[in-house]
Every structure is written in structure tokens, then in C-alpha cells.
């Protein structure tokens, strides 16, 4: 897929909490085709400490309104600067980068999309995409507390939503892997993105029930386009770049101990 360097404009910046912001970007030109699971490399301007671009997942693309959504969790100065962007400001992005989640060949397949924290970011777009292809979509979203569970209504547009929180303040109490839906249904495909321990737990559950499982990995990236070889992960084929061979990996390719 052809990659672009684009200047997009902030159309809305919705502060979801003091930790999360939803950026809605737009452009005069039509947004390019983007697949679910792909990411962008964002240039951060006006920071004395941020030097490199920051990888951020594509949260959602609305081709009708020509909107690109990014869900930002404030971690350090780069994400802070992004969360502080004002309507009308310009953001420079490289996109679309990386591979994407794979689409089941069997249209009857039972699908589960499991996200934790900011890891839900790519799943909204994936869910929307799967639904548009006629699949039934189930989201399972976990967080520490109800304040980590953001914008539920958006997910509900595209599928069923199941929730866990560690403190029980929303949905079932516990971790995503403890949610009753995992016992009630038998999923064929599990897509996940979130903290590594969560993804490992999901992967081991998937292995047990023989489901196909795809995880989205993070890594320290310099270029985002396969040029620097800084972002490798160890796979059964040796070191591969997460920014080009990933971020989405079928769990069977990774050398995870699960």
C-alpha cells in the first residue's frame, strides 16, 4: 500500500479524561485507504525533548466525513503535546503504516476483539470494518476502573460490548480473561491489543480453545517504515520489524511462552 506524508488538520480534540484524548483529524483531500490495525507516525512539534515521531494506531476512519480518529493516552511529553493540540492546528503524519488484522475467510466465524487500556485504539476501526463485511462483532474491553472504559457508544455501533474492570466499577469485576463471555461462547478468531500480560493471557486462552489469535505489538520505533531495523521482535523466522511485518502478528509466529 502506498504510504503518504500528510498534513492533517485537527477538527476536534475531545478530552476523555485527564489521561486520554480523542483527536479527530481531517483534510481537504480525500484520506487514503487505511486498513484496520495499521498505524501512523506522528511528528511532534514544539517540544524540547521529543525528537522522533511517535507511532499511534488508527482508531477509526470515517470516509464519509473524511475523518481520521486517533486515541491518545498521555504517557510522556510526546503524547502530552498531541493531547494538547488545538482545533485548526496541523499535524504531520506518515500513514498508513504496518500490516493489518486478517479477515476471516469463513463468514460464519465467531469473532472476539479484546482490548485493554489504550489498546482498544485499533479495535474500533477493526470492528467497524468487520461489521461492514457482514460479520458479527463482539468487543471485550477491560480496564482498571470505569474511568478507563471510554466512548462505549462508539463500539456499540458495531457490535456487542462486554466489559471488565478490576475494581468492578463497570461490567464484570476482574480481568478480561475472566469475563463470562469467554465461557459462554466459542470464538474462532480473537483479535487483541493492549498490555503484553493481557495479550499473553488472551493468547493462552485462544490456544486452549483452538482459536486463531492475532495480537498487535508495540515496540520502540525510529522510522516506522522498515528502514532502520530498530523495532524488531523475535519470531520463528528470526528478528522481524514490527513496523512492517507487524504490528499485527498471528500468535503462532511469535516466540511467546504461553
Amino acid at each position, binding site marked *: 500500500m*502506498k*504510504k*503518504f*506524508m500528510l498534513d492533517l488538520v485537527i477538527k476536534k480534540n475531545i478530552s476523555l479524561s485527564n489521561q486520554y484524548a480523542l483527536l479527530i483529524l481531517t483534510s481537504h483531500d480525500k484520506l487514503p485507504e487505511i486498513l484496520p490495525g495499521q498505524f501512523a507516525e506522528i*511528528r511532534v512539534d514544539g517540544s524540547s*525533548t*521529543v*525528537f*522522533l*515521531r511517535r507511532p499511534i494506531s488508527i482508531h477509526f476512519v470515517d470516509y464519509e466525513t473524511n475523518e481520521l480518529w486517533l486515541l491518545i493516552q498521555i504517557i510522556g511529553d510526546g503524547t502530552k503535546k498531541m493531547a494538547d493540540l488545538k482545533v485548526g492546528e496541523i499535524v504531520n503524519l*506518515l500513514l498508513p503504516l504496518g500490516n493489518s488484522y486478517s479477515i476471516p475467510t469463513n463468514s460464519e466465524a465467531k469473532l472476539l476483539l479484546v482490548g485493554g487500556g489504550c489498546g482498544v485504539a485499533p479495535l474500533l476501526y477493526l470492528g467497524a470494518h468487520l461489521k461492514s463485511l457482514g460479520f458479527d462483532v463482539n468487543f471485550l474491553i477491560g480496564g482498571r476502573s470505569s474511568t478507563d472504559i471510554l466512548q462505549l457508544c462508539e463500539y456499540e455501533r458495531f457490535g456487542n460490548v462486554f466489559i471488565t474492570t478490576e475494581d468492578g466499577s463497570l461490567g464484570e469485576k476482574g480481568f478480561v480473561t475472566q469475563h463470562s463471555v469467554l465461557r459462554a461462547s466459542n470464538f474462532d478468531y480473537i483479535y487483541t491489543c493492549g498490555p503484553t500480560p493481557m495479550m499473553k493471557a488472551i493468547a493462552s486462552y485462544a490456544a486452549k480453545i483452538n482459536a486463531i489469535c492475532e495480537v498487535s505489538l508495540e*515496540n*520502540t*520505533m*525510529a*522510522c*516506522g*517504515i*522498515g*528502514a*532502520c*531495523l*530498530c*523495532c*524488531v*521482535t*523475535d519470531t520463528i523466522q*528470526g*528478528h522481524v520489524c514490527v513496523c512492517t511485518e507487524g504490528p499485527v502478528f498471528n500468535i503462532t509466529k511469535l516466540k511467546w511462552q504461553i
Partner: protein
Amino acid sequence: MANLDIKIGKLQLKNPVLTASGTFGYGSEYSDFMDISRIGGIIVKGTTLRERQGNPYPRMAETPSGMLNAVGLQNKGVEYFVKNIYPTVKNIDTNILVNLSGSIIEDYIEAAEILNELDAIPGIELNISCPNVKEGGMAFGTSCLSAAQVVREVRRVYKKDLMVKLSPNVTSISEIALAVEAEGADSVSLINTLLGMAINAEKRKPILSTITGGLSGPAVKPIALRMVYQVAQAVKIPVIGLGGIMNATDAIEFMLAGASGIQIGTANFIDPTVTIKVIDGIDEYLNRHGYKNVTEIIGAMEI
């Protein structure tokens, strides 16, 4: 439009802007963003005789105005390059140079012999300065004796342009430059990365899997510029300057200090089209200052 053509050693370039090894893949990674054939030369990834898996993750740390990397020369080896990559890159209408690394002299020689046979590769950049491999690599570049030895041996088998890339992690880079010049290097390029380190204080751990790594980016520019100036004063062969070049002004500074050409590395990560902007910016500078040829600004700094 000024004339940007330049001859560096045995190379004929359409402009003095090259891409630095290890930061531009094999070129194709950037071809969505611009016409990469406009670049004066593309120096591809560090290549070794045999395949290398490189270092474990994590390989990168951001630092103030720079970055550390510990890639460790991950590549599939020279045979793979010849079979699978050469057939594609040879069609890019610019100079494609291979950056050649090794840990023992025999490996350098064997790989250089193979590369010597590739018609569309007009030269190699001999990397005797990579700080991210345990044996050899930087060790060659940090003593005059071993630097001279590896250049002598490679020169014997490699007939085309031989650019030697110097390590900045030395007391006197001019002495190393003189030593490799004496052995027949066609040009020297500098600087490779400076050996550095980053620590995560909260975790009390080094950030890189290899503890130390190579520092690049604008942070190192003042050091690189000084070294290019020193080496250009010392040697007669052309000097290619690099280290932290982010824009045309930086590139021009290196040329004023004595560089015949420049390379752009880390800046490609921040702006994949930076090479084109630098080429255009040099042209603009030459026009504004009334220069007809880019060669006029080489070493044109007034003291």
C-alpha cells in the same frame, strides 16, 4: 539552477547528497514519498559476508536531539544481497553504494570480491567504525594500524570506488584518515555514531539490550563538523561529511568545513523527504550567493 554535479573519488554524482547507511533501508522504503533517483547516492544497509540476526530488542533509545541505536548490522549477508536485492536496486537511476562491514579481515575481503563483480554498484563504503558489534567493527576504526590493514587488503581486491567510513570514537580522527588515505582509499566518510548509553532510572536498567549503542542526530553535529574540518585539512582525498544533518543549512556547513559530499541519516526518520529538501536548499543557497557550481563552497569557510 546551479550546477550540483560533483565527482567524489571515482564516483560521479548528480548532487552531493547521499543517504547514510542503515537509515535508508535499500531505498525502496522511501520511494512512496519522493523520487529517490533524485538523490546523489544511496548507501544501503550495512552488509556483512554472512547473515546476521543483529542484537536483541530493545535496539533504540531517544536522547536529547538524537537517538541511540544498537541494531548490530542485522542483514541477510552479501550473497542474499546479490541474488535478491541487487536485481531491484540496480535499476534505481543513481549511485547505489554498499556499506560493507565485517568482524575479521577475511570476511571483508571475501565480501568485497563479490561486490566488485556487480556492474551497477560503483563503489562501497567500508565500515570500520560500527560501535554495535562485539568483535572487530569499531576496533578496526580506532587504531591506525588496523584501519590501514583492512583498507589495504580490501583495496587489493576492490577496484571501484572505495569510501572508508571513520569512527569518531578516537583521539585523533585525522591520523586514522591519513592512514587509510595512504592505503588507497578514494574518499573518507565521517562520522559514524558516537558510543553512548541510556538508562531507565525507574527500572534501574540500561535501555538498550547491548547496554551501549551508537549516538546519531543533531546532538552530534558540532562534533561531526569539527572532525570533518580537521580531516579535510589533513587529507587530500575527498571527505564526505555526516552526523546530525537535518536541513540544507546543516549540509552547507559541512561543505564549507571541507566536505565534498554529505550524507543524511537520522533525519530521514523525521522527514522521509528531507534529502530532496536538502538538495533544493543547497541549490537555493548557491543561487542566492551567486555560486555557479556546488564545488565552489567546498572548504569555503573563511577564517
